[in-house]
């Protein structure tokens, strides 16, 4: 959870952030345009200097959802173990966010994973390639409109028979 001072500082600096609490975890929903500024502020001025995770949620078919993708940043304080969740929403076509690799080198692979699985493009990322799936994979399989059993990728492998050796 985040300390009251952190929440107060965030509220003063970014009044548009919607801060809420659920079971002791604090979350701030911010517009996509300022998410980089918010994270930079938290890192440099508040001390939440550790990027713990970047992940994404696809709200397609979700009841009462207004936006398609929710991108979630979890930042932590290396000394007080304070934790804060920053969430923002992006939409089709071509959901795009600014990269945070300029703030954290470690965000490199996290953003690559989000790109691989959800197809969120991170502007300014130094090396936005797939990280888990094969490079020639065409889709982003954790999107809700991607079928669970795939589009034939698992069957599209050449066959090795006994007569090959």
């Amino acid at each position, binding site marked *: 959870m985040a300390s009251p001072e952190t929440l107060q500082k965030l509220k003063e600096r970014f009044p548009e952030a919607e801060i809420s609490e659920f079971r002791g975890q604090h979350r701030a929903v911010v517009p996509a345009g300022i998410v980089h500024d918010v994270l930079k502020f938290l890192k440099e001025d508040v001390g939440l200097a550790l990027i713990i995770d970047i992940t994404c949620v696809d709200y397609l078919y979700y009841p009462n959802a207004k936006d398609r993708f929710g991108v979630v940043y979890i930042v932590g304080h290396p000394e007080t173990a304070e934790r804060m969740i920053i969430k923002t929403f992006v939409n089709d076509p071509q959901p795009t966010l600014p990269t945070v690799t300029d703030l954290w080198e470690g965000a490199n692979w996290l953003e690559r994973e989000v790109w691989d699985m959800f197809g969120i493009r991170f502007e300014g990322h130094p090396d936005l390639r797939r990280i888990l799936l094969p490079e020639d994979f065409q889709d982003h399989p954790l999107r809700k409109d991607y079928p669970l059993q795939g589009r034939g990728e698992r069957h599209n*492998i*050449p066959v090795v028979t006994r007569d090959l050796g």
Partner: protein
Amino acid sequence: MTDLPDNVVITKLDALVNWCRKNSLWPMPFATACCGIELMATGASRHDIARFGAEVFRFSPRQCDLMIVAGRVVMKMMPVLQRIWLQMHEPKWCISMGACASTGGVFDTYAVVQGIDRFIPVDVYVPGCPPRPEQLLQAIIDLQEKIQREGTASGREAFRRRQPPRALVEDPRNPRLVVAGPPLFASSGNDPASDRPAGSETSAT
């Protein structure tokens, strides 16, 4: 025949060679999941795969003749599995251990191959999730029986499988994969498989 002393046994060379081969299987453990733990238990002292002559696990395919695929194989791993299979020397066999390797198991998802036998040859399937070591031992006993019945000393069945010898080239569709290319040599007439009598062709397993 009456001149033969009592301590001489006459047998077919094929039977003798098969007897040697089946009791000295060298497994290549391709363990990707929990089946690999049972595979290790099979190799450990309690179940003791050495009773069947298959205790020499080697991690180089060049030294193995039995591939045991233990666990689920994803589409990204399949080219690796195929390359290892192609690197093994004849005669060679393959055991598909467990529900995932044989059918994909519960992992009916976009990335998991629904049975390795779609893409490489398999001799024996072991059901179970994961199978107990006894089941794997039974699979090895069954494979030994198969080797004793079907093998030949000169590996004629292996030559029959790979006629004509072909170069391995990169797949143009998928550069990470090796596939059979054009024939290596023009037909020279001295192919070991070509001296068998006409009509002796049987289906390779």
